């Protein structure tokens, strides 16, 4: 063995107790779906893990009515403190079964075990623990006294942080008093179904959370279902647009957490080695499958060569391979489809004249893999500087002045995240003020916390997840005040308050009346 060669250190799969087939979790029980089942595979080996059910229209309907029934009959009548106790139970059960969940997540998603073990699953527990405490304190959520739940929440989540996205959605929804129908991504349903088992252990009342699996059409049926009051979606901007269109004219409240093309800005006074670690964390964490990834590096011209040299040296130490190996830094790309997209955009980068450099790591023969890659000589008009690649691919651009850095960072229809690396506090504050992005990391990157609101500007979506603001996305004011001078009307963009879509103009005009009701 040579320097930096490690013996294999695979995490054991022995603690997994997976079934060969999974049904839908509706009204507290697993039932077979009526659509065509599909297989979920390990993207590192392309081996089947289990068969997953597809929910058809009737199944979606059953899930929504189970959620409605649970809302009317049980959940909306429960005290806040009792709702909170269920959430605390869930948080504890997640902690107890953390290793099992981490292994299952790595198996199904392809991300390294060190990330599922140290980031994803601990944050899942933290999210439930945080929102558990909110359940009996809703008066302080910022929506006015005695706010009301919305009803049934339809939630559709992506494949990049499967269980963590589930927690981001379900924890605040339940704390606020809503019931839930959640659809995980097609390629990463497994941990959501294990989570359903946890709900059974927690003895959560039947129907409060329903988990239905399937592809995009199942998700579409769910968000379009007339029985849901809230739609929360995390995923691509294209699908987000389609959902915003389909929700138009209804009274469904909408949160969208969409794509990004985050700028990571490195000034010449930055601590370079720390910045290089931050650049790596920004784009190679989770194989770059991160909506808030720092996928555009903006480096000040005077230090460009130094930064790129050190970055390449650091990248050569990244270990790509078996996601279950505890020493692995870069796991598998989640699906063949995603790998094709990363390849297509990277090839385009070369064709457009950018200079491509990848680490010379060994690519396994089975599974989906992409070596960590950077592009230099990138200009702002290149597709690789504009489109979200959602893979371990970094585009490097340069700037001379802070004003140029800000202009380039904001030159995107997205506005989710940004990073600033500088030793000068006053510059960090001034630049952070000017960046049009919902989350900004100064001398750090890709930090998440349940108390910290997360979400985008512009075409990265609207609404926030996390913190007090994430809670208010699932609440509405209690009663409308009669007085003009005491405001109690809620104005949430997209929360169109009226009767059915494209209804007669009479009901279109009932906007304010509807707000008063429930």
């Amino acid at each position: 063995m040579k320097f930096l060669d490690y013996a294999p250190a695979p995490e054991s799969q022995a603690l997994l107790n997976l079934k060969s087939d999974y049904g839908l979790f509706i009204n507290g029980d697993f039932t077979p779906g009526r659509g065509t089942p599909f297989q979920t595979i390990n993207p590192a080996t392309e081996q089947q893990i289990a068969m997953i059910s597809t929910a058809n229209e009737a199944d979606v309907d059953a899930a929504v009515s189970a959620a409605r029934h649970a809302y009317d009959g049980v959940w909306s009548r429960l005290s806040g403190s009792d709702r909170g106790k269920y959430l605390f139970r869930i948080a504890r059960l997640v902690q107890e079964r953390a290793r099992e969940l981490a292994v299952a997540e790595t198996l199904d998603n392809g991300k390294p075990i060190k990330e599922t073990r140290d980031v994803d699953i601990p944050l899942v527990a933290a999210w439930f623990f945080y929102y558990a405490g909110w359940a009996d304190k809703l008066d302080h959520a910022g929506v006015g006294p005695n706010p009301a739940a919305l009803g049934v929440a339809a939630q559709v989540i992506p494949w990049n942080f499967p269980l963590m996205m589930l927690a981001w959605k379900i924890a605040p929804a339940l704390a606020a008093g809503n019931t839930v129908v959640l659809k995980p991504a097609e390629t990463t349903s497994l941990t959501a179904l294990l989570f359903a088992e946890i709900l059974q252990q927690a003895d959560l009342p039947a129907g409060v959370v329903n988990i239905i699996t399937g592809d995009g059409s199942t998700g579409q049926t769910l968000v379009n279902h007339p029985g849901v009051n809230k739609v929360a979606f995390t995923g691509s901007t294209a699908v987000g647009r389609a959902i915003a269109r389909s929700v138009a004219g209804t009274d469904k409240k909408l949160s969208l957490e969409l794509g990004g093309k985050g700028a990571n800005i490195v000034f010449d006074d930055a601590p370079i080695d720390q910045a290089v670690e931050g650049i790596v964390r920004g784009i190679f964490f989770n194989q770059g499958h991160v909506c808030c990834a720092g996928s555009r590096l903006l480096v000040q011209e005077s230090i460009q060569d130094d930064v790129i040299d050190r970055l390449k040296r650091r990248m050569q130490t990244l270990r790509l391979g078996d996601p279950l190996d505890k020493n692995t830094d870069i796991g598998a790309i989640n699906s063949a489809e995603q790998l094709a997209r990363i390849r297509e955009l990277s090839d385009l980068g070369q064709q457009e004249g950018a200079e491509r450099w990848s680490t010379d790591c060994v690519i396994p023969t089975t599974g989906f893999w992409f070596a960590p890659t950077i592009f230099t000589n990138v200009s702002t008009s290149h597709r690789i500087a504009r489109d979200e690649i959602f893979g371990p691919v970094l585009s490097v651009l340069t700037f001379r002045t802070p004003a140029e850095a800000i202009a380039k960072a904001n030159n995107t229809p997205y506005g989710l995240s940004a990073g600033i690396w500088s030793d000068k506090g006053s510059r960090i504050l001034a630049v952070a003020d000017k960046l049009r992005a919902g989350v900004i990391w100064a001398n750090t990157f890709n930090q998440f916390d349940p108390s910290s609101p997360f979400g985008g500007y512009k075409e990265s979506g609207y609404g926030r997840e996390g913190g007090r603001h994430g809670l208010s996305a699932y609440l509405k004011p209690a009663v409308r005040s009669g007085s003009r001078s005491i405001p109690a009307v809620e104005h949430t963009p997209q929360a169109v308050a009226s009767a059915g879509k494209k209804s007669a103009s009479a009901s279109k005009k009932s906007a304010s009346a509807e707000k008063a009701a429930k």
Partner: protein
Amino acid sequence: MNRLAIPKTYKLYIGGKFPRSESGRVYEVLSHQGDFLANAAKGSRKDTRDAVVAARSALSGWAGATAYNRGQVLYRIAELLEGRRAQFVDEIESCEGVNAAVAGTQVDEAIDRWVWYAGWADKYVQVAGNANPVSGPFFNLSVPEPTGVVAIIAPQGSESLLGLVSAIAPALVAGNTVVVVANELAPLSAISLGEVLATSDVPGGVVNIVTGSPTEIAPWLASHADVNALDLVGAGALDWVELQISAADTLKRVLPPETGADAAAPALSRILAFTELKTVWHTKAIL
């Protein structure tokens, strides 16, 4: 001998100037009794796009002004409106067919609404922002910021001045700039409000007022990629669902139509509807 009065030419208010419609079109504004009052400019697609350009150019200055300064400028609008109270009462009387007392109450309410919103300029961030206790060595702060350019279809109902003020004031508080389509049948007080704005330290382009047909103009605003948000408060009679669908293409923030006496009632949530929450993580040194 009676002196012959000098009637006013009512034009658009775009970028701090009062241009005619580039289309050369006008439409007749009639009194409640059906008498001719004025020819108002019938704003076109091009006028609307010019207004969006003006609003975009004015954004960084207005959003970057201190909250104290924005509050004072908004309060200044109330001062000047008070000084020209008689003119507004007169226009509302003739346009809306109400008596002087009713018109006066409307103007008073509009003035008070400016004052109420002016006071929010340096407070809404404190109420809606948050310091967040994250698990780690970070100082983490969430702060609301203006969304950007907000397009507004002003209320088309009976209280033309109050409806307009109720819709534009909250968007201005946070530092957004505005393109507003005025009340189609009663546009006179909107243009006169433009004159107040032009002389009350509101930078040119911060508020742009287009008169004409909301049915014709609204779709251009809903689909315009440089408009960040759409307030459909006065769009109840339009095909507003289509407008909302069109706005979804650029993921605009959209507020739905409202009607009734309480339409666009003053509310903090109306200010926050056109803000974006920014969360900044600052690393702390490990001592």
